[in-house]
């Protein structure tokens, strides 16, 4: 690797107008990244797209008929888009996301503002405590909360049963959405809080002092000055929460052994997993994967557009 850059390293030579020649060094620096990017992002997506256009057909007839993989056009996409399992999964995802995303961001912003406020105590302890769930994998978080939901081990049900009200049905009916969303909120608040908080710390204190001198209360300073100034961080955390929502898989899968209310197709990724591995219908799973990926991309781009901020755009 020591001979990477013949293009620019000619010592002492008068500036040979580096710009007119194409330098070799940046391409060499980028090689490992680009190779891995191609292998594990571009090629899998390409392969999935190709596979999604194929399907198994019985060719020939009678005893000699055999299954053959043939080109079937957009048939798999049509099948995915009309699959009741896949679509109702998106419905559940929407309910789950409508609970999880605003609450995660709202709480993260609230805690970040409280950490940054002059009127709170116990900041260091609270910041650390709220950040701790970030270190707990989603699957393990689901395991912990799952036991806190189960009637036989839940402390809440312990109390309500003692009062004669019976156990709380955390894992069935409409409560299930809140229970699954709660796991995501618990795991996500701390990380988002830290991003927003670091952003708050970057606000020049003169701006806030000026407002205080003008008689603004601490709440007014928070809402009128701090929140607008950390809007880019809010857009970013919102984007990540949304992307995370579309990809929820581990939490409901882990809770499945504890409840019968979570079906095999509760969210879209679970349907994809079932189609690929239980039903062995890889083309259909590939088509659904492509749809989910496209959906994620569209949602992200729309959100960024809506935010009208150049959140990622300092490229040129």
């Amino acid at each position: 690797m020591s001979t990477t850059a013949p293009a620019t390293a000619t010592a002492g030579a008068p500036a040979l107008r580096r710009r007119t020649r194409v330098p070799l060094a940046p391409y060499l620096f980028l090689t490992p990244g680009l190779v891995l990017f191609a292998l594990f992002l571009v090629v899998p997506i390409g392969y999935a797209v190709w596979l999604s256009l194929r399907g198994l057909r019985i060719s020939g007839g009678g005893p000699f008929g055999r299954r053959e993989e043939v080109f079937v056009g957009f048939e798999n996409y049509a099948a995915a888009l009309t699959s009741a399992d896949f679509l109702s999964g998106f419905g559940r995802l929407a309910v789950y996301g409508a609970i999880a995303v605003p609450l995660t961001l709202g709480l993260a912003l609230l805690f970040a503002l409280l950490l940054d406020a002059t009127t709170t105590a116990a900041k260091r302890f609270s910041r650390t405590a709220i950040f701790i769930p970030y270190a707990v994998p989603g699957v393990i978080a689901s395991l912990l909360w799952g036991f806190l939901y189960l009637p036989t081990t839940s402390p809440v049900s312990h109390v309500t049963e003692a009062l004669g009200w019976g156990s709380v049905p955390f894992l069935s009916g409409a409560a299930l959405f809140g229970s699954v969303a709660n796991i995501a909120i618990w795991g996500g608040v701390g990380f988002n809080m830290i991003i927003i908080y670091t952003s708050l710390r970057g606000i020049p204190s003169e701006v806030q002092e000026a407002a205080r001198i003008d008689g603004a209360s601490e709440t007014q300073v928070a809402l009128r000055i701090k929140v607008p100034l950390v809007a880019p961080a809010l857009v970013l955390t919102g984007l990540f929460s949304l992307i995370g929502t579309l990809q929820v898989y581990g939490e409901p899968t882990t809770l499945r052994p504890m409840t019968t209310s979570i079906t095999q197709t509760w969210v879209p990724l679970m349907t994809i997993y079932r189609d690929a591995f239980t039903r062995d219908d890889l083309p259909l799973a590939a088509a659904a994967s492509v749809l989910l990926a496209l959906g994620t991309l569209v949602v992200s781009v729309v959100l960024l557009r809506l935010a009208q901020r150049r959140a990622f755009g300092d490229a040129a």
Partner: protein
Amino acid sequence: MSAVGTPVGTRPAIGAPAARRPRQRARVLPTAVLLVGALYCLVPVAWVLVASTKSRGELFSTFTFAPGTGLLDNLGDLFAYGDGAFLLWCANSLLYAGVGAVLSTLVSAMSGYALAKFRFPGRDAIFYAVLGGVLLPGITLAIPQYLLMSKLGLMGSHWSVLLPSIISPFGIYLSRVYAAAAVPEEVVEAARIDGASEWRTFTAVAVPMLLPGMVTVFMLQFVGIWNNFLLPFVMLSDEHRYPLTVGLYSLLAKGSGEPALYSLAIVGAAVSILPLIALLLFLQRFWRMDLISGGLKG
């Protein structure tokens, strides 16, 4: 553009005492809200630590937060399960997350440095491709990656989990933002004039300046890989190659038919989250989270 400058160390560390403005008297309500949040986050962790001390009988019969008497038995059972499968899962998680995060950090730093400090044809195209990758991360790719790995015959091996974990578009993006701000043009130019090769300029001059950003990328990747479930779940079928997440899930999934495994899953969860929490608390001070939010305002 001004904000890109702020990551480079004028700000007080997050943990520093709030010295920048006079302290007002703490009020009860805001402090209480903050403490409720802290409590909410700590309760499940406290529960798993308490529950891991309960014997199988106590788990379903005593009050949730009443400590039990079975901690040593549970630990013994855990480490004996499947001929030490739990320790193997720990080792696997450490392998995937440790090696994966180190390689990912190096790859990201090299790529980010190239994108930030050179002008060359195709640079913008590559950068936009990376951004596309940021918006389309990991999990939706797990099934397509599985299809590819099975074509390559790597499915089920350590490689099938390790290799896809190395590429991180977000890591490259962060490295680019950080390199643009932390490595001054003149320093790179000076090294070149002194006759250093581009590689040597990178390793001897740029990398020391990039270190805080690299630590951040490392931690994000380490936690991300450690917490990943779907990728190893899809790729692996041999219990001996499972990371902790998939291993503990398998205990829980079997537990619905065999309640004894519930205790194992609980004590396993307790044992496995403590080291990561400790690591995170220790490394918290080296994090440059402002990198994530700071790079945006540019």
